[in-house]
């Protein structure tokens, strides 16, 4: 269930604009995400989906507009920003597990160094999370020894270990072999069911239908259409969405 206890959405983007040189990648983005809400962002390649995701934890700074998390404005670089990022989990297309650390060490690093938890406490929590995403038996291996699907599930556990308020997923299954996609999506559906607030960039319609409250369709740096998944996939309003859907449906 989505909620707005203090009248504030958990994540609010208002009038967000960003340029890469001449390229206007994000154009007047307004978006509000409530607690417990799952928003799927969909759109053609190059439409600004990744940039949007990365702007929310300020991996990309924005040029104009405001982003607030839990009512607080995104801080500039520095301590405050690090604190905010700890509350925003991020899962990348290319996993980005720490290559020199074991699976367990990957999950433990943030809680110990950022949350200042004891090593024992962090490890026992990490093992629970690895269990939850189904890779507990791999705890002592290095990322390179795992399949892509396993690596991505570890990456999810690593993000969850920080007990984030919101999780961002940037095409979490795009780099995976087809037979591994579902093991990752199942974990994500589980998270959604448990009430995690999620922003998910994906073209997986199955996931959107099973888990999303809303689909946001982006094109050319703009949010072109927002609708619930069923409506979006069966009766899209904009021509650009219709065009886009016809392309991904025929593949």
């Amino acid at each position, binding site marked *: 269930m989505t909620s707005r206890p203090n009248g504030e959405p958990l994540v609010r983007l208002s009038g967000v604009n960003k340029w890469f040189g001449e390229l206007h990648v994000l154009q007047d983005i307004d978006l509000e995400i409530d607690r417990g809400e799952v928003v799927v962002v969909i759109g053609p390649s190059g439409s600004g989906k990744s940039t949007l995701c990365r702007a929310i*934890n300020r991996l990309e700074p924005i040029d104009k507009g405001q982003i607030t998390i839990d009512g607080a404005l995104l801080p500039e670089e520095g301590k405050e920003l690090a604190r905010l990022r700890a509350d*925003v989990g*991020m899962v990348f297309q290319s996993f*980005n597990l720490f*290559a*020199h650390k074991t699976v367990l060490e990957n999950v433990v690093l943030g809680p110990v160094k950022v949350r200042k938890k004891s090593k024992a406490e962090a490890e026992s929590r990490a093992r629970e999370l690895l269990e939850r995403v189904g890779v507990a038996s791999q705890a002592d291996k290095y990322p390179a020894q795992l399949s892509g699907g396993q690596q991505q599930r570890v990456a999810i556990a690593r*993000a969850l270990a920080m007990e984030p308020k919101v999780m961002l997923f940037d095409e979490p299954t795009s780099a995976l072999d087809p037979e591994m996609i579902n093991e990752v999506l199942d974990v994500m559906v589980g998270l959604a069911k448990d009430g995690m607030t999620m922003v998910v960039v994906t073209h997986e319609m199955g996931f959107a239908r099973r888990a999303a409250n809303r689909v946001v369709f982006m094109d050319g740096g703009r949010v072109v259409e927002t609708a619930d998944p069923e409506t979006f996939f069966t009766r899209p309003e904009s021509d650009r969405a219709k065009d886009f859907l016809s392309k991904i449906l025929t593949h």
Partner: protein
Amino acid sequence: MSPVFDNIDLFVDGFLTSLEIILYALAGSVPLGVLIAACRVSPIPPLRAFGTFWVTTFRNTPLTVVLFFCAFGLPELGINRSFFFFGVLGLVLYTSAFVCEAVRSGINSVPAGQAEAARSLGLNFTQGLRFVVIPQALRTVVPPLGSVLIAMMKNSAVAGAFGVGGDLWSTGQRLTSALGYATFPIFVGGVAVGYLIITLTAGALLQVLERKVAIAR
């Protein structure tokens, strides 16, 4: 070889003095170089500018000029220390620029996604560098860093010549020019052997280190 054995005490002293210069220079230039490298990749523009300035200055100035400035320029600015101190200082400043660039190339060899993942967990810039990027950079840093440090060990002779005195090179110099020994046996049999003992040992240690950081993966 007897000119060497006749003066073995002097050579041992020279060897130890060279070793001392080298160890101080090592202890100074490596941490300083890492610090400057951290500046050069930092998100804070003034720090980046400072790092670039540092490297540009010391990498593009001949070592003799840096040493000359330390040994004769700093006293004019009211800083009075021993020649030994100034010799080591010059060597540290000069070498730190090269250490910085070796470390920076290692940092750049680590995929950007690693630092991004660290940042998105809430690690600050220094923590990301320390716990995620540098440990992975080490693998690629050790060979070029080794070259830089071995060059530094040989450059210690230049610092020695700059008035530090008593090191291997100066000992050879003194025996040949002041005491009239023939150049060849003194420099080949004594001075060169002394430096080779140091650099070859360093080379072997570096190889061990290289193997160690390669396994740590």
